């Protein structure tokens, strides 16, 4: 399984029946492909749609029914449309249960940077700052490293998206949460060792005593916890 699919599948396990969810572009979009059978989730598109459906059949696309990237989509039964103030009222007013966003960096306290690389990439924040500030729960979907360099860092060198910490980071190596404001390793992905996660992570990483470790013998885990730069909870 490729890294993106692995991440998306793991995040899909966080979905609950009846949730209102906003997915960012990239890996987050893939989460919609793994909604558990029988579960109904409302997906919001911030250009003014709840109930975003798949791409229309050839010849059936309507130019006025699009996703946030401007691409024609369909609407599912029970869908609703609204203006941009309502769309962001849903996001900022605490009505959005979950947002899944991509990330460039997350610091050891859970603060996300995902909207610009000064001098290189300045696309604008779009709805990212509103989503992180306003959603009930924020999950970051990203590769653990970029060009071999950790993306979970002591301090973000890139401009922050919000000062509100995210709830969970899911990578192809691990699931990391931020209880008490400290990066904490909650799960390792199948076949990944704690040492591998620690080596690919910058800054303090607390090893959760309830760490799920599908392939890892306990002794190794304890050793890792003691020798790592982090400390157990």
């Amino acid at each position, binding site marked *: 399984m490729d890294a993106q699919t692995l991440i998306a599948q793991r995040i899909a396990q966080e979905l609950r029946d009846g949730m209102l969810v906003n997915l960012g572009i990239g890996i987050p979009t893939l989460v919609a492909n793994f909604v558990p059978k029988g579960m109904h989730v409302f997906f919001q598109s911030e250009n003014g749609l709840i109930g975003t459906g798949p791409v229309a059949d050839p010849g059936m696309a309507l130019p006025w029914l699009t996703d946030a990237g401007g691409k024609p989509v369909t609407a599912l039964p029970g869908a609703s449309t609204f203006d941009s103030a309502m769309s962001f009222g849903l996001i900022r007013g605490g009505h959005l249960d979950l947002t899944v966003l991509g990330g460039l960096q997350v610091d050891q306290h859970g603060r996300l940077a995902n909207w610009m690389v000064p001098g290189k990439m300045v696309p604008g*924040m779009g709805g990212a700052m509103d989503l992180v500030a306003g959603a009930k729960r924020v999950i970051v979907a990203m590769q653990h490293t970029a060009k071999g360099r950790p993306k979970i860092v002591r301090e973000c060198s890139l401009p922050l998206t919000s*000062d509100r910490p995210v709830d969970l980071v899911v990578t192809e190596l691990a699931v990391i949460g931020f209880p008490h404001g400290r990066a904490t390793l909650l799960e390792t992905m199948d076949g990944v060792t704690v040492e591998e996660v620690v080596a690919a992570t910058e800054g303090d990483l607390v090893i959760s005593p309830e760490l799920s470790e599908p392939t890892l013998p306990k002794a190794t885990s304890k050793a890792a916890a003691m020798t790592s730069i982090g400390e157990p909870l």
Partner: protein
Amino acid sequence: MKTISLQDAAAMIPAGATLMVGGFMGVGTPEPLVDELVRQQKGDLTVIANDTAAPGIGIGKLITAKLLRRVIVSHIGLNPETQKQMLAGDLQVDLVPQGTLAERIRAGGFGLGGILTATGVGTIAAEGKQTVAVDGRDYLLEPALRADFALVHAFIADYLGNLGYVLTARNFNPLMAMAAETVVVQAENIVPVGVIAPDHVMTPAPVVDYLIAKG
């Protein structure tokens, strides 16, 4: 409300004006009006909009024609030409979080001086902004936005100027229709009064100044 030709509508807009332009990635942008502004080469404009679309689409055409002095938008990522002009110093780009942009426009149209929002607190979007604490939480004071003209796209308009929008083409249009000195509407369908049921009117006729007649 008056009806107006496409040519006269664009001619009414002076160079240097501030425009609100409806649309989200070009969806719900009054495209014929944009084309006419390009044809008449109306320059030095400031545009308030969600984004600068893409080259050849909506506001992207104004960018490519170099008619803009300044844009106040939430996203320019899908238009490399905007970034190019920004980096060359030819275009001022003010980036605003999308929800904040919508609310600043809404405030402008609803008689509010601005809004308080937690979006952007602790980021570079807070630079130069006043912070106000309410019940122990910090908010940014974001001032209202207004424009000289709102260029609005509607799916349906009646002869009085009552408007209805369709699906995701609604976006910023009804907010902008409240927030400009002069509101100009391009509608896909123009229908007799009464065809739009009162409950289905999304923008009431009195706020509309001009409806562009079919060519």
